[in-house]
């Protein structure tokens, strides 16, 4: 053993969440960290071991790669390709104009149409995008936030038009606006009306589409913005509580909506820290729902999640190593009892995934299901002294962070002031410094670099000007053909309902059905709510 390894052995090690990791764990550590009290059985409160007793025996996790680009016809083809290759759910990427409520003929949309996701202007586009896809067999997750209420209305209207009973329709919308203010940035309206819109969707779905999950609270992007794994989960719980509080203020009983809240979490870094994060989080969320909200239905206490490999762990350098990283992330996700999995593809640091790279991600998950025995036994790491101790310690850490947020006035206040943003961005800076200096090892980046990096290690997804032209023409054709009196009547109702504090979902559904565009509906809401002004704080 050389001196360097010797001294490394003696140095205390901490995981990213700031918890010391010991070289050896015994039963005494489990006891000292709180014992086995929160472990329980899978499928039973507090669900630390998983929300279902049989877990993947009954059904493996849903495979839901993020996809979408160009116009709806291009995306429909990609969807069909992924389904033909064994994907079991869809995870829809929208372009930036759609995400922030602009029509494709808006001057600000120029050069951005269909670039990072598919472009949606009206219901007609959704009809094309999901044409030929059985929405009962394939559940659809819409990665949309600022414009979520509009796109949910559009999805429900499309499904209804196709003949589905929306009372039975499953699916998810991301619709977590609070995290958009922290990271990702596709906000439109100020904080308060944005939360109200989330509440409108929860309230509307509870009555009209009770199997639809209107919100997927995202620790994922908060982690990408610089949060630690413990903060990722703690902040997500604070945000979910803010939405739950809004629903309760409207008079909704907790058991009528809590079961449809879901989560989206990130995976990169220390394997055990991640697995324990998820086990700890499940126990903590169940406890919060039961003790603080008086939930009685088990489903209301479930931390249901999509947990996938995060872009934050992938590197620009030696991109093929990202395939290996992705496989470890998928393994972590399976060991953590996820309901749904998505992996960032190996070329994600460069471009939106090609068919080839998307297929590799899908095959990575299929390998785990078919060859590695991951679906046979629930929560296979339970009972390990290390895992149970770290699960307890991660839970204590999350509780500590949530108490800090409460002490500072709550998550809504902190997001409005920009203090959470400043905190995670300071941490991102410190981490980048550690990567630059080599203190935090990244293979291919600050150690084991190739002498000569290849110039074009990945194939690029090209921007297609023609797609943008077709999209704009399609929108203009709809504007010419639709019943414009009906559209303006629906938009007037939308403005009125927004101004009067009524739930805007019925008016949105009516407007969508009249083929009002995303931009037109957003404008009405901006007229009432105003626009968000970003607090710049360092």
């Amino acid at each position, binding site marked *: 053993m050389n001196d360097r390894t010797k001294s490394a052995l003696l140095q205390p090690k901490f995981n990213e969440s700031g918890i010391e990791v010991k070289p050896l764990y015994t039963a005494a550590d489990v006891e000292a960290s709180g014992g086995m009290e929160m472990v329980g059985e899978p499928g039973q409160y507090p669900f630390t071991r998983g929300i279902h007793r049989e877990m993947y025996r009954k059904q493996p996790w849903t495979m839901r790669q993020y996809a979408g680009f160009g116009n709806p016809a291009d995306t429909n083809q990609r969807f069909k390709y992924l389904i033909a290759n064994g994907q079991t759910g869809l995870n829809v990427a929208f372009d930036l104009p759609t995400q*922030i409520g602009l029509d494709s003929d808006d001057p600000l*949309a120029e050069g951005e149409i269909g670039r990072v996701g598919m472009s949606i202007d009206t219901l007609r586009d959704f009809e094309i995008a999901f044409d030929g896809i059985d929405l009962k067999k394939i559940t659809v997750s819409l990665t949309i936030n600022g414009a979520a209420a509009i796109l949910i209305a559009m999805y429900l209207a499309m499904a209804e038009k196709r003949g589905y009973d929306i009372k039975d329709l499953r699916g998810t919308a991301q619709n977590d606006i609070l995290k958009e203010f922290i990271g990702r940035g596709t906000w439109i309206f100020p904080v308060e009306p944005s939360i109200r819109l989330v509440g409108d969707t929860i309230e509307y779905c509870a009555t009209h589409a009770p199997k639809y999950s209107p919100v997927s609270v995202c620790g994922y992007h908060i982690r990408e913005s610089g949060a630690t794994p413990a903060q990722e989960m703690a902040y997500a719980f604070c945000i979910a509580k803010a939405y739950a509080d809004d629903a309760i203020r409207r008079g909704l009983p907790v058991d009528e909506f809590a079961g449809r809240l879901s989560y989206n979490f990130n995976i990169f870094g220390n394997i055990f820290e991640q697995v324990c994060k998820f086990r700890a989080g499940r126990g903590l969320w169940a406890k919060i729902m039961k003790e603080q909200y008086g939930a009685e239905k088990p489903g209301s206490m479930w931390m249901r999640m999509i947990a996938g490999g995060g872009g934050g762990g992938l590197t620009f350098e030696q991109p093929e190593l990202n395939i290996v990283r992705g496989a470890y992330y998928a393994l972590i996700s399976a060991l953590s009892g996820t309901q749904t999995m998505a992996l960032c593809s190996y070329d994600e640091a460069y471009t939106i995934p090609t068919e080839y790279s998307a297929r590799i991600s899908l095959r990575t998950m299929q390998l785990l299901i078919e060859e590695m025995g991951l679906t046979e036994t629930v929560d296979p790491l339970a009972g390990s002294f290390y895992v149970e101790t770290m699960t307890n310690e991660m839970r204590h850490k999350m509780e500590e962070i949530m108490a800090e947020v409460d002490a500072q006035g709550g998550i809504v206040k902190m997001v409005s002031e920009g203090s959470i943003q400043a905190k995670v961005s300071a941490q991102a800076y410190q981490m980048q410094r550690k990567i630059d200096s080599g203190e935090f090892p990244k293979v291919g980046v600050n150690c084991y670099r190739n002498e000569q990096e290849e*110039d074009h290690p990945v194939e690029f997804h090209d921007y297609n000007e023609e797609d943008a032209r077709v999209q704009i023409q399609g929108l203009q054709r709809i504007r010419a053909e639709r019943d414009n009196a009906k559209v303006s009547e629906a938009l007037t109702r939308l403005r009125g309902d927004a101004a009067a504090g009524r739930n805007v979902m019925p008016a949105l559904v009516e407007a969508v059905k009249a083929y009002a565009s995303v931009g037109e509906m957003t404008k009405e809401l901006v007229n009432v709510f105003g626009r968000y002004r970003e607090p710049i704080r360092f």
Partner: protein
Amino acid sequence: MTASQRRIKVLLGKPGLDGHDQGAKVVARAMMDAGFEVIYTGLRQTPEQIARIALEEDVDVISLSSMAGSHLPFCRKLKPLLEANGLNDKLWVIGGNLPAQDHDALRELGFKGIFPSGSKLDAICDYIRKETP
């Protein structure tokens, strides 16, 4: 007074609709630690807004952080606006997700400093210190 005698003033802009600002904020902090005065614009700036802020704030360096692939169309619109405002003599820098095949086009548009993802923070700051007119 030249830049070497006073604090270097940098505009750091987030062009277009992209919301990925983790990198921009990290670079802003690095620039502040390097002793520069940093004007960070926040998200969703148009070319007109970038040019106006650069002029009003009388910055020495105009830098952009672009992550979602629209750097070329954006810079093509920005260049004539910067020129029309007499900002040709400032140092133009761009960082982010910038594929190697676009670097020549960016250089031709006047962006002398190009820092694709993976660039070190000190490399960016050292370059600005050295190249600022």
